[in-house]
C-alpha cells in the first residue's frame, strides 16, 4: 500500500479530482495549507505599503492506494494539476505499513 501526497495549486483541485475519478480512485483527503518552493515572494500593496507574501495558499491531497495503482494515480494527479507555471507543486509516494477501516475494523487491502 502506498500513501500518495500531493501539494497543488488551490484552483486545480477540481481538475485533479476529475482525473483521479477517471483513474478509478474513489476517495481522497484534501486540506488547505500554506507553503513556498523556490519561487520568489509575491508583493502586495496596502495603502502604498509593500508587503512580501512568502507563504502561498496551496492544497494538499492525500490518497492511500494499492501498490499497483501508484503509477496511474501519480500520472492522474500530475495531469490534473499541471499549468506549466512555477508553483504547480509536487507529488510524492511513501510506503505505509498498516491501514484500518474504522467502521468495520478491516485491515490491509480490504480497508482501501
Amino acid at each position, binding site marked *: 500500500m502506498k500513501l500518495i501526497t500531493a501539494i497543488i495549486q488551490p484552483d486545480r483541485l477540481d481538475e485533479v479530482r476529475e482525473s483521479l475519478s477517471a483513474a478509478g480512485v474513489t476517495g481522497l483527503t484534501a486540506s488547505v495549507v*500554506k507553503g513556498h518552493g523556490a519561487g520568489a515572494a509575491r508583493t*502586495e*500593496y*496596502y*495603502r*502604498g*505599503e*509593500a*508587503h512580501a*507574501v512568502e*507563504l502561498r495558499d496551496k492544497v494538499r491531497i492525500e490518497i492511500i492506494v494499492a501498490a499497483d495503482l501508484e503509477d496511474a494515480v501519480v500520472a492522474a494527479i500530475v495531469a490534473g494539476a499541471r499549468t506549466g507555471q512555477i508553483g504547480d507543486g509536487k507529488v510524492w509516494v511513501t510506503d505505509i505499513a498498516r491501514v484500518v477501516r474504522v467502521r468495520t475494523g478491516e485491515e490491509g487491502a480490504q480497508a482501501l
Partner: protein
Amino acid sequence: MPPADLAWMLAAFALVLLMFPGLALFYGGMMKGRNALNMFMMVMGSMAVTAVVYVGFGHGLVLGDSVGGLGLIGNPLEYAGWTAFTADDGSDSAYWGAFYTLFAAISIGIVASGGAGRMRFGAWLVFSALWIVLVYAPLAHWVFAFSDEESGVVGGWMRNVLGLHDYAGGTAVHMNAGASALALAAVLGPRRTPHGRPHNISLVLLGAGMLFVGWIGFNGGTAAGANFLAGYVVFTTLLAALGGGLGFALVEHFRDGQATMLGFASGLIAGLVGITPTADAVTPLASLPLGLVCGAVVAWAITWLRRRRVDDALDAFAVHGIGGIVGTYLAVLFASSAAPAGLTGLVFGGDPLLALTETIAIAVTLVYSFGVTYAIAWVMDKVRPIRVSAKQEAVGLDRALHAETAYDFDRI
C-alpha cells in the same frame, strides 16, 4: 420642526448610526485577525461612554449658553441629566441631543486609530470620557454653537467671533480626531509586532460603504431639515467621495503600479472628509475634483507619515486630519458664490480674509487637539500604564483582553 423636516432628520439620525458598525468594520478589517474584535470594542465602547457623558453634562458643554459669554465652553448644567427633554416645547432639543451625541461618538471612534492593537480596553474607555469632556466638548462648542441675538444665547468663538466656515465639522470632528489619534499614538509608541497585511479587505469595503451611507445622514442632517440644502449637500458629498476614490487609485496606479480596493476605499473616506466642511460652499462640478485632490493627497500623506516614527495604525491623521485640511483650503480657493453658503473663493476674487480665518481655525484645532490629547494620555500613562503588556500584544488583544476570537482559525 415641521413634520417633514423631522421625518428627514430622524432618517438622517438612523443613517449616521450606521457609521459606527461601519467604522468598526473599516478599522477592524485593516487589523490583524487577532486584534479585530478589540477594534470593534474600541469603537462601540467609546460610543457608549460618549452617551454616558452626554446624558450627564456633555451636551451642555457643547451647545449650552457659553459660560461667562466668553465663547470657550457651554454651560454643563444646561441640559444636565436631560430632564428638560420630556416636554414638547417646539425646540426639538431631544432630537438634537441625540444627533449631537452621535457627532461626538464618531469623533472619538476615529481616534481609536491611534491606539489600535496596543491599548488596554479600560484605559481606552477612561481616555474616551476625558477626551470627550476636555478635547471634543470645547472644540465642538467653538464650532457648532451658534450665537442667537434674539434670545441672548452666546455660542462658540470660532463660529461667531472668528467667523469660521465649517459646514459639518471638518475642524471639530475630523481634524480634531486626526490630530488626537496622532497624539495618542505618540504617547503609546509603535506596535511591537510587525503589523502585517490587513486581515480582511472585504470587511474594510463593507465598513467604508456603511460610512458612505452614514455620511449622507451626517452632512444631509446638518442641513437641519428636509430642504434644498439637504439635497444639495447629499449630491456634493456623493461626488466628493467618488472623486476621492479615483484620486487615491490614480496615485497608486502611477506610484505602485496598480490600483487597490483598500486604496479606493481609503480615498472614498478622504473625499468624504474633505467635503464635510465644504459641502455647502462648492458647486457639484467642483466637489468632484475637490474629492479627487483630497484622495490623492491623502494617498501620498499616508506613505509619508508611515516613514515617521509615530504609529498612527489606521492613518486617521492622514485621512481625517490632512484630508480635512486639504478640503478646507480647496474651498477657500474654489468656493462658489452660487452655492448655498454664498462664499466666494479666492480664485473667483473672494476676500483673502477667508483664508486667514480658516487658517486660524485649523491651526488652533490641531494644536489644541494634539496638545490636550497628548497631555491626557501622558498623565493617564503615568498613573497606570495605558499600554498592554508585550505578552498580551503577542497573543493578540482579542484573546488577551476580551477572551474571545473573531475566527476559528487565523492566518499563519
